[in-house]
């Protein structure tokens, strides 16, 4: 190590060069020195060269800009610039660099380290300050710090670029929007939390009459999750094209996760939880009019018939792939006579819906409407995960708005009639979210009719028995602007002539069956099925 030295403020200098910790050639740093005073420039050049740096000294900002442009910004690891120069200041160079390569760190050297100047420089992105006369140890420390910052910023920039690229690939694979599946179609809405994540949706044509849709969600929403999800889609496509069954494909990937991936991951990261993949596949046979559903850990899909009745396509979802050596899937074959819609979604939607105390369908509808208007829905700020929602239209040549879309599908215990005020509040929340333009009179009439139908179901259909269920559903038909409410109970329906009763006006001051009178007057159209055990009300908005 040589003795220390100083550089004066460009008004005469005494050079005492110093080697602190020589940098190996492999780590040789390229430093651009911008200094209009020749003595100072020489001092900086020699000091840095003695300590293993490759230095390019220039006298003006214009020269610096020319060299950076000619040699490329990535050629340099940091810039040291004098503040006061004949034609420009060092901050002019900083401002210019920010527009060209914001990753390259800049150190400003000045004899006038005023607080205001320091604050302004830091605000404009300067990495460090050197007060003249410059001392070599401080010079080298500042260069080391600046080079490290440049490296870090360049790594982050590369990661961000890679992430953006991956995100673009994922969005291309998921393909938000409407796509044709032969005569059928699928509408996908994807709202990633970050640039890339673990939610994927794919559809595969097996034959002109057979299609398969696959929705996956890997634990976590990072690059690894995206990689695993995409990997499964590739395997799924390959095995499906070779006539493998859904249990075979799911079983194969479960084996991979349990026996290979998670064991390797646990060895490398000590992550005892491992990676899990929730997936649901729907195999649609348009000719046979059936849908085969295979679920591992994903939310249970819902089938909505053309007349608007929603049904879960399985009793529950089972665990995801990657947890147990044997897959515990839930599968079902479902008749899809006459068309309808199958809805699939990932748990990011369900989680946000729970947090907002609304139904996932209602939230999906609101998010989709905002996306159609090229608006990011404010509720997405609250999301902690990716959100993916898909609607498979089984009715040929039909778009989403041309069928009833469920907003709320709820099942209540028969003894929940006493909670009717809380239920009403929940219906109002959902209606306000999905149809903010509804208006108070319409909302009042809809909610009051729902209240009457639900109370009727609790009291007469279920006899307040907890083991019986009331099923309530709110649907919306966008094309017709019709809101449909279905209320079903397990009872036998009316024990009186409903139509005759309803013809009799309320002026008789009867104190019974008035709820039905409310229903038929508040809704524009009412249909009673199963002798009134199912009430279907329609409101024209």
């Amino acid at each position, binding site marked *: 190590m040589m003795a220390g030295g100083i550089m004066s403020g460009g008004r005469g200098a005494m050079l005492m060069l110093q080697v602190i910790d020589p940098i190996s050639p492999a780590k040789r740093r390229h430093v651009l020195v911008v200094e209009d005073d020749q003595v100072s420039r020489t001092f900086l050049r020699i000091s840095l060269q003695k300590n293993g740096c490759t230095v390019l000294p220039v006298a003006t900002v214009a020269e610096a800009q020319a060299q950076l442009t000619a040699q490329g910004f990535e050629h340099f690891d940091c810039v040291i610039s004098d503040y006061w120069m004949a034609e420009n200041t060092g901050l002019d160079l900083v401002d210019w660099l920010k527009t060209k390569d914001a990753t390259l760190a800049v150190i400003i050297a000045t004899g006038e380290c005023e607080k205001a100047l320091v604050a302004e420089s830091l605000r404009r992105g300067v990495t460090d300050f050197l007060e003249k006369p410059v001392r070599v140890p401080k010079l080298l420390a500042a260069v080391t710090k600046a080079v490290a910052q440049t490296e870090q910023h360049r790594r982050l920039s590369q990661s961000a670029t890679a992430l953006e690229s991956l995100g673009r690939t994922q969005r291309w694979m998921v393909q938000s929007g409407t796509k044709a599946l032969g005569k059928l179609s699928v509408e996908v809405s994807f709202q990633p939390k970050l640039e890339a994540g673990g939610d994927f949706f794919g559809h595969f044509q097996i034959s002109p009459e057979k299609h398969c849709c696959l929705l996956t969600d890997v634990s976590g929403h990072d690059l690894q999750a995206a990689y695993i999800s995409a990997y499964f889609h590739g395997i799924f496509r390959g095995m499906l094209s070779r006539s493998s069954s859904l249990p075979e494909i799911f079983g194969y990937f479960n084996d991979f996760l349990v026996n290979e991936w998670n064991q390797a991951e646990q060895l490398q990261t000590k992550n005892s939880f491992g990676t899990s993949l929730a997936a649901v596949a729907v195999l649609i046979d348009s000719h046979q009019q059936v849908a085969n559903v295979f679920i591992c850990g994903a939310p249970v899909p819902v089938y909505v018939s053309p007349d608007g009745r929603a049904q879960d396509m399985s009793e529950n979802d089972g665990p995801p792939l990657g947890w147990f050596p044997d897959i515990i899937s839930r599968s079902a074959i479902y008749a899809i006579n006459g068309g309808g819609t199958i809805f699939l979604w990932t748990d990011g939607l369900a989680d946000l819906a729970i947090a907002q105390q609304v139904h996932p369908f209602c939230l999906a509808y609101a998010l989709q409407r905002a996306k159609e208007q090229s608006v990011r829905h404010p509720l997405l700020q609250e999301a902690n995960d990716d959100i993916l929602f898909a609607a498979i239209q089984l009715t040929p040549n039909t778009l989403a708005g041309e069928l009833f879309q469920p907003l709320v599908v709820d099942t209540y215990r028969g003894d929940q009639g006493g909670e009717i005020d809380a239920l009403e509040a929940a219906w109002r929340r959902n209606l306000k979210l999905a149809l903010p333009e509804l208006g108070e009179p319409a909302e009042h009439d809809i*909610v*009051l009719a729902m209240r*009457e139908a639900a*109370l009727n179901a609790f009291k007469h259909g279920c006899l307040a028995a907890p083991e019986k269920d009331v099923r309530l559903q709110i649907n919306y038909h966008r094309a017709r602007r019709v809101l449909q409410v279905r209320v079903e109970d397990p009872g036998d329906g009316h024990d009186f002539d409903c139509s005759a009763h309803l013809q009799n006006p309320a*002026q008789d001051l009867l*104190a*019974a069956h008035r709820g039905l009178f*409310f229903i038929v007057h508040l809704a524009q159209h009412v249909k009673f099925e199963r002798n009134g055990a199912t009430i279907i009300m329609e409101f024209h908005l």
Partner: protein
Amino acid sequence: MKTHLDSKTGVLSVVLDGDLISTTAEPLRPAINKLFEATSGKDAAWKLFRLDLSRAKMVDSVGLNFIVNVLKSVQQHGAKMQIVYANQNVHRTFLFTRLDKHLELLSSPVA
């Protein structure tokens, strides 16, 4: 629920705090019955019963049944009944159920 008997004008008033619906109407029945019993003597005669629903935004079928039962009691008492409302949805409910044929509806500026 607030009650007031104006013996000079012969008006018995009841002001409800909010909606008249299934969850609020049931507890009102015994309170109203008790009120009628307490005010049915010669010294406390009233000729008009005024039910103030100006704070209500909804009246459901159970609430309406409550009103019908009260109306019958009022008629047995030989008196008339008025309902004060502020919300237009509440007003519409009384119109489509034709309760306006049996009692007087008064619009209130109080929301």
